[in-house]
């Protein structure tokens, strides 16, 4: 392993970079989980199904011949409406129930959303072309010797923009502050007049928007199909490593998972007969659970003596 790194350092750098970029794609999915966990303490099992639903809606609209940007707008509206509906129908009746009950409700939500998406839009695999080519960026490659995918670079930029936007939303806006207040202490938030329902509706709507962005990018990469819902499984190690309630954590966790799995596959994989990419992140996550259960950026539990 080391001899390869030494003989061809540029190749190692390239592997890591392309890993980082695919990691950003994981981050996009993880962001939706982190957002809802932060605001309500619920692990939304249905986020993967949200991604599938969003992508299917978008691609079906495109196939109907609707203009690209109009399709984006309509899908956005659908996801926002769906997020609000989830709050109304699923969460509102369960306010103040133990978190495990809310979690179980999201498992039901997961199956429902998967079923709904496929009932509405069918089960075929659709190709999705966003107009961004998944080819190496030759100009950069010729200049530096690093050949990175244009598509992944664009995805990274989009993810970066979303993270900055979310960070600003959380720290600078009234609703963002209220959201953090709610995640700290539901009852105290109610006592100062923050309407929980309203805040939760906003959270789920934003999670719907993130699902759409993730669904579009992943759909373009893998094709829009049922397996998009399984992306949730890839987001899990990302969240464990980054911290469930942290936006930054979702990003850094994604980068770590992406870079380490590609690196492990290329340089350690041969010793295990390959294909370790699929399970390596889970090993990493297990190690984190042992030594730093709140993740890298998870909010520390403040204990007072």
């Amino acid at each position, binding site marked *: 392993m080391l001899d390869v790194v030494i003989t061809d350092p540029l190749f190692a750098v390239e592997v890591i970079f392309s890993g980082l970029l695919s990691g950003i794609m994981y981050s996009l999915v993880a962001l939706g989980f982190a957002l809802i966990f932060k605001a309500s303490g619920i692990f939304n099992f249905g986020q993967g199904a949200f991604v599938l639903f969003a992508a299917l809606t978008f691609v079906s609209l495109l196939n109907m011949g609707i203009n690209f940007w109009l399709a984006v707008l309509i899908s956005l509206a659908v996801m926002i409406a769906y997020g609000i509906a989830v709050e109304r129908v699923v969460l509102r009746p369960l*306010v103040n129930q133990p978190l495990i009950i809310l979690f179980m409700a999201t498992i039901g939500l997961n199956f429902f959303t998967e079923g709904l998406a496929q009932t509405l839009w069918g089960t075929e695999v659709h190709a999705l072309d966003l107009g961004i080519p998944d080819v190496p960026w030759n100009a950069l490659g010729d200049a530096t010797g690093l050949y990175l995918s244009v598509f992944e670079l664009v995805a990274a930029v989009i993810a970066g923009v979303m993270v900055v936007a979310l960070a600003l939303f959380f720290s600078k806006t009234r609703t963002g502050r209220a959201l953090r*207040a709610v995640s700290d202490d539901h009852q105290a938030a109610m006592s100062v*007049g923050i309407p929980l329902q309203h805040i939760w509706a906003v959270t789920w709507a934003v999670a719907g928007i993130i699902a759409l962005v993730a669904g579009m990018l992943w759909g373009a990469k893998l094709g829009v199909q049922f397996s998009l819902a399984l992306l949730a499984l890839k987001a899990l190690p990302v969240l464990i490593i980054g911290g469930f309630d942290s936006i930054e954590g979702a990003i850094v966790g994604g980068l770590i998972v992406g870079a380490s799995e590609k690196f492990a596959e290329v340089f350690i994989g041969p010793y295990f007969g390959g294909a370790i990419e699929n399970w390596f992140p889970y090993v990493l996550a297990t190690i984190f659970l042992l030594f730093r259960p709140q993740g890298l950026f998870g909010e520390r539990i403040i204990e007072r003596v």
Partner: protein
Amino acid sequence: MSTPNEPLLSVNNIEVIYDRVILVLKGVSLDVPEGGIVALLGANGAGKSTTLKAVSNLLKSERGEVTKGSISYQGKRVDTLTPNDLVKRGVIQVMEGRHCFEHLSVEENLITGAYTRKDGRANVAEDLEMVYSYFPRLKERRHSQAGYISGGEQQMTAIGRALMARPTLILLDEPSMGLAPQLVEEIFEIVSKLNREKSVSFLLAEQNVAVALRYAKHGYVLENGRIVLDGAADALSENEDVKEFYLGFSGTGRKSFRDVKHYRRRKRWLA
């Protein structure tokens, strides 16, 4: 002492049941006059916090319910409103145990208190300075995470946060809890200053009867979900029963059982 016009808050014979089974308040009535400081006194589990939560409507989130009686504020029934509506109308609760938003800074905590206000940033900023003028210590710690400041500072943050909503009535639950006597004194001084200067009325639940009666104008004694005594604060602190059961004075020398225990017997009949 009691004003001839209508009280600001009037709680009328309310009964509260938790989880549809546990009867906690068995007919509590009390009035808070405009500009008053009213103390709700009693031991652990007497129903003080429940009374406050019944007023602020936070009960529902704890599976409690007002099953009988009525609550009016400024002459209008408020028992069906949400906590959010009540805050908009000027009634805000400072919960027992302070409940600051631990991961937010002190300043963010305070600004969150202004959530329901629609009168613009400039006014909120002005009120933030007002809160800092009452609690200079909070200004020093404005950027600290609220989870890491001292208990006294957290209590100040919680009261300051409530002030940011521009309330007319603050329901203050157990402000002395877990604080050093000197700090308790400081908090109560600020309460009475706010009452004088900002004409904020207070309904405060307190176990520390001695301090509460010094600052309040009127007091109610709550036991087992019933009001057993009420009166002007100075009259209550002179009351032999209150002295014996809450202030820890045993009067002068030994007394005959018959003279002293009538209140305890009365307690037994009522329970």
